[in-house]
């Protein structure tokens, strides 16, 4: 009795997990270059996300780690060992499929036991592990059901239980929340995060939804057209995007075109409509740089107030609840400004002339 309890509690403890290194990986199908020189280090025990729009190669990269895709060049190392030549069934990486891929001819318990049976474990141990895994996702009472008798959220948890039952070195999640409704999504992503923390397992999460990635991941890799654009903690990437794509993919960004001119020894950013903004001393501008700032970092003021950075005219006003969103015409560009909504606060209306204030610290100079 005490012994089995001890086993159960050890089950709950952290799994032996591994880091994942992706080294100079290229994947192409004919002339279609899906992944280009991808280099990533995913630390052991980390919750990592591949984030990007559809077609950016994030799922291809995940399937490459699972062994379902083959790299044209480069290598994938799990726990320091090159797995490029290992078939999927020898990799010990658990994958939760977007469609869950539960086998309809097996019960929930049989689904979860499958991987353990393939590992030729003794029946007693299989039973213990199945019970533990189902307990972890809170589905012990549904063990005898068929997948078709479960709700979408329950199916998703069975898929997770099936995967963690084999104690994989790495857990792969392929858009696991995309088939759930909005409310379930928030709940399940917290559960996934909790589970990952408890097991301490290296987890890679594929998503096109920045909110999902930001809320549960330690670090994210933003991808576009088969190229990793930026890697970092969600907040860092949001605050310091390296290019226009990352800036606009993570949240809303105002992007204003213009060029840098010299004016009496000082650099000035010249925009359409003869507007000028002095470039701060020491700012590093890449070639073809544009002015980038977030809607909530700008603020509106009366046009004659002290030292507004730019002047413009309000075109639209939208009430969003916590904030009021203004669309302001600045020269030939149109920018979005979010102001917090407070009772009694004075609002601007369409047609009002306004001044736009920008803290220098929140301005980015970014190129493609």
């Amino acid at each position, binding site marked *: 009795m005490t012994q089995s309890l001890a086993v159960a509690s050890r089950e709950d403890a952290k799994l032996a997990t591994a880091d994942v290194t992706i080294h100079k990986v290229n994947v192409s199908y004919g002339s279609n270059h899906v992944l280009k020189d991808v280099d990533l280090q995913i630390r052991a025990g980390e919750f990592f996300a591949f984030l990007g729009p559809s077609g950016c190669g994030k799922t291809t990269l995940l399937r490459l780690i699972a062994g379902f895709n083959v790299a044209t060049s480069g290598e994938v190392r799990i726990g320091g060992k090159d797995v490029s030549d290992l078939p999927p*069934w*020898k990799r*010990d990486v658990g*994958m939760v*499929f977007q469609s869950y*891929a539960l*086998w309809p*001819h097996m019960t929930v318990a049989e689904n979860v036991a*499958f991987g353990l049976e393939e590992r030729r474990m003794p029946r007693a141990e299989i039973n213990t592990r199945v019970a533990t895994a189902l307990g972890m996702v809170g589905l012990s009472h549904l063990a005898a059901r068929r997948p078709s*008798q479960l709700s979408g959220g329950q199916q998703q948890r069975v898929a997770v239980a099936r995967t963690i039952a084999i104690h994989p070195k790495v857990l792969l999640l392929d858009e696991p929340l995309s088939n759930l409704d909005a409310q379930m999504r928030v709940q399940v992503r917290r559960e996934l995060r909790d589970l990952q923390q408890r097991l301490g397992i290296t987890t890679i999460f594929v998503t096109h939804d920045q909110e999902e990635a930001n809320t549960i991941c330690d670090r994210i890799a933003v991808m576009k057209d088969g190229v990793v654009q930026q890697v970092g903690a969600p907040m860092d990437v949001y605050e310091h995007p390296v290019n226009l794509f990352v800036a606009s993919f993570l949240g809303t960004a105002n992007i204003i075109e213009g060029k840098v001119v010299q004016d009496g020894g000082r650099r000035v950013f010249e925009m359409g409509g003869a507007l000028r903004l002095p470039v701060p001393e020491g700012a590093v501008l890449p070639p073809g740089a544009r002015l980038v700032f977030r809607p909530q970092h700008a603020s509106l003021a009366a046009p004659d107030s002290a030292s507004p950075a730019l002047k413009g005219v309000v075109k639209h006003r939208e009430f969003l609840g916590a904030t009021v969103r203004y669309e302001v015409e600045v020269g030939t560009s149109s920018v979005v400004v979010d102001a917090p909504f407070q009772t009694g606060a004075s609002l601007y209306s369409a047609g009002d002339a306004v001044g736009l204030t920008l803290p220098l610290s929140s301005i980015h100079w970014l190129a493609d």
Partner: protein
Amino acid sequence: MGGFALFHLPTIGQLRRSATPGQFALALAIFIFLILFLVIPVGTVIYVAFTERGTGSFTLVNFQDFFSNDLFMRSLWNSIWVSAMTVVWASVIALPLAYLTTRFEFRGAVLIQTLGFLPLVMPPFVGAVALQMLFGRNGTFNLLLDDTFGFKIPFMEGLSGVVFVQALHYFPFILVNLSTSLRNIDRSMEEAAQNLGCSGFRLFRRVVFPLAMPGFVAGASLVFVKVFDDLATPLLLNVKEMLAPQAYLRVTSIGIADPMGYVISVMLIVGSVLVVWLSAQALKGKDYATVQRGGGGLSKRKLKPLEGLMAYSVVVFLLALVLMPHFGLLLMSFATVWSFSPLPDAFTLSHYGRVFDDSWVYVKNTLIYASMAAGIDVVIGTAIAYLMLRTKLIGRHWLDWLATAALAIPGVVIGIGYLRTFYDISLPGGAPLASFWMIIVLALAIRRLPYALRACVAALQQVSVSLEEAAENMGATKARTVRRIVVPLMAGGILAGFVTSFSTAAVELSATLMLVQANADAPLAYGIYVFMQSAAGRGAGAALGVVAVVFVGLCAFITHLIVERSQRSKGFES
């Protein structure tokens, strides 16, 4: 720009990863099987037709003989005529049934569609004798006609008899395909035409029928080929001047060394292939399935009272006609003497007694042959489906094409080819391999493989690839994944393929008529055929026929139930 990347040749590594050694071996084994039991026998037939007897050198003399022989030319035209007229009459039966049941709120539409299948669970030649009793010169119908009006209608005379029997037997192929096509037309097609001012018969002629055309062509070409190849029906109706009977008679009366039997076989192949090819050409690029997701078929409207009366009369008349062979057969199986009278003189159960007594061997043989053939078919069908859909093995489509090619090879040709190819190979006991009963099983398996293969391919297409990837991800090898995931999930489809193969193999005669060497090895269809040739054996033959119909019908029904249930328990929506 980028035009040089048209051909993307796989590297050795990709080849190695795309198929395991086991998969290579499997593909090779199937390939050898198809070569041995399809390509070589058919190739032998073609080879003999084009070579000089004795020397083995190439010659066209045999074909000159064929084309200058009046009997053969007449047989050729007769075969074409009978096949074409069967298509016409089968369409006359199928068209109203298909149209009425898909276009109107029709009570009993399901019954009609189901009854439409009944002719298929009985060999056509069995119906031939029954129809002879009902519609022949001295059959029920003509005797009554003669008594009342003083004239007879020659339904069953010569070629018309063959057309009559075949049309009643094969119309379901047109009915099923046409109904499917009609159901696949979205109502928006029709509504758009109505919106532009088209209605009534013009609407049918200009929009509905053209959209249903592919289904009609597919069904019609199938009927043509089936009739063109059929051997037993004309033989039982004593029509010998057609191609298939001529091939059979040449080989059985003059011997397997005579080249004319082979020349006729080649003509049969050419005819079948030509028709299949023509229909494929006609259907190219015409996938007219227009039903939108969630939308459903043509709008059904209610019949007005007078229309209803007409429609139901037509349907009842046609169904009565279609069920005549079954009715006649049942009557015959209980009849003592039935000759020159509208109905039998008296009824008896003795024919059934005889069937369960000394004819039981036919039933037993059929059970063994048909289940073995169907077993071979689903194993090969599943394997080809898997290789084709789940691996990138080079040449995998060849397996599919080769297996499907059997569709265009007439049964007589398979029979003659097997006889010629396997006659010279001796069994350990000294008897020729061609006389071994297993050869009959193989012939049946090759003939029915295309049907089982289609069923297996459809079943595998229903299984999502991610279910297999999940198994591999959980540690199952390719082979284990097939065993634990793929096959169980395909089970319903595999079973359906098994039954299709089984029930059609159980009533097949064209290929086996030539291969049966001993009565003890004979299957049901052969037994019925032998019985039916003499007036005295007709009662027993009919009883055997009834047993066959009930037997096959029951198998099909039970399987249908099993498939339904297993699909539902797996959560598939059917």
